[in-house]
């Protein structure tokens, strides 16, 4: 799967979670810009996992700080 397709599908999933209307550039950070609580993180990760039929373990989540890194990780996980 190519990165552009992945980015489009993630953009559709993240919209309802992005309640504060943060501009989602590749550099946007989950901790600094989106400021989700842990339950929101779990729901969002579950939605991504179900869309792409992948697992993003908490260990992998810890390495994902920006929106761009998420797109990269999902592209990699869904492609393998």
């Amino acid at each position, binding site marked *: 799967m190519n990165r552009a397709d992945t980015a489009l599908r993630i953009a559709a999933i993240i919209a309802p979670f992005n309640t504060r209307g943060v501009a989602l550039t590749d550099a946007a950070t989950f901790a600094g810009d989106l400021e989700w609580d*842990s*339950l929101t*993180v779990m729901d969002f990760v579950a939605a991504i996992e179900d869309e792409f039929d992948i697992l993003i*373990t908490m260990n992998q989540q810890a390495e*994902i700080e920006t929106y761009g890194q998420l797109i990269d990780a999902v592209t990699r996980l869904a492609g393998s």
Partner: protein
Amino acid sequence: MTEGIDEAARPEVVAGTGSDLFSKFDPLIEQRRALLADGQEDPFSLVMERVLSPTRAVCNGRETILLGTYNYMGMTFDPDVIAAGKDALDRFGAGTTGSRVLNGTYRGHRDCEDALREFYAMDHAMVFSTGYQANLGIISTIAGKGDYIVLDIDSHASIWDGCKLGNAEVVPFRHNDVEAMEKRLKRIPEGAGKLVILEGVYSMLGDIAPLKEMVRVAKAAGAMVLVDEAHSMGFIGPNGRGVAEDQGCLDEVDFVIGTFSKSVGTVGGFCVSNHPKFEILRLVCRPYVFTASLPPSVVATAATSIRKLMHGGNKRAHLWENSRTLHAGLKARGFQLGTEEPQSAIIAVIMPDLERGAAMWGALLNEGLYVNLARPPATPANMTLLRCSLCAEHTAEQVETILGMFERAGKAVGII
């Protein structure tokens, strides 16, 4: 992402001294200051001046009913339990000063493990110095790097810490959601080791897990199953073995984790199992090896208490009565509760926010009632809870008294 979101702001650099490692606690320090500024008593530093019985103590010079101790079966003052502890103290001394694998296994430790094997009708039992260490030790030792742990998002802190210590891949799923658990199990790479971790009773809201269905799904996916029955031992299930026994799936569970600090009435933790290689854990489990064993008096009280719990049918029935009465009474008075029906001996009363939760806690203490104040991040969905845990030794009259206290305090604070 999860890590990043929980992380506090970067510490400021103090000129000439480097960064202050305590800066990360500033938001919590400020929250406490604001909460206590208007004379609110600190809910997290209450002192029990005297303890009169499993259900009564003296706090701030006033006799107080205890409704937040997890002392479900009231064994802390059982005469046989106390006698066993005193006898062991006299004959074996105050402490072992050693690890279980060196000089810290006395006759009493073995006897306590025998009592657990009898209680659960299982082949192996391993006693730890605390319940926290039982989860930390078992989970981190059996699920290591490259293995997968699939667990409920509302799991206890000791379970999360065990996952972290073992360095396994950690996959959480939504609370009690069988389908979410199954989907994640199916996505684990072929050939990887799999451990599913569940709890019988979840202690924050007092709700139980659909263990029969979850254990079936986990076993079908080829996973081993560990169930923490800390809050169910002694009174749920025909023999008090917990929710898995009650739902008829205990035989399918690979490891049961439990504690002595609730129904058993002292301190310590354990794991029971039928796994044929279980005993090797005594040599490879670091939180078991690298700590001193429980004092002789503690294991003697635990063994005596566990054997008495095997015959606690009447007390169990009374505890369930208490749970039903309190739940129905609080509901009728307009309080919002954690579960629609009473599912355990924990009744969680949901507070609108931390400020009013703390005020309600203080008002109840003034009435002469102690409950647990639980707040984020320990609680699910950032709720503030007044957690009530009932005891088999609470009389029916005490429960009525408690309901009157809740009604007056609730009206005074404006919650009902």
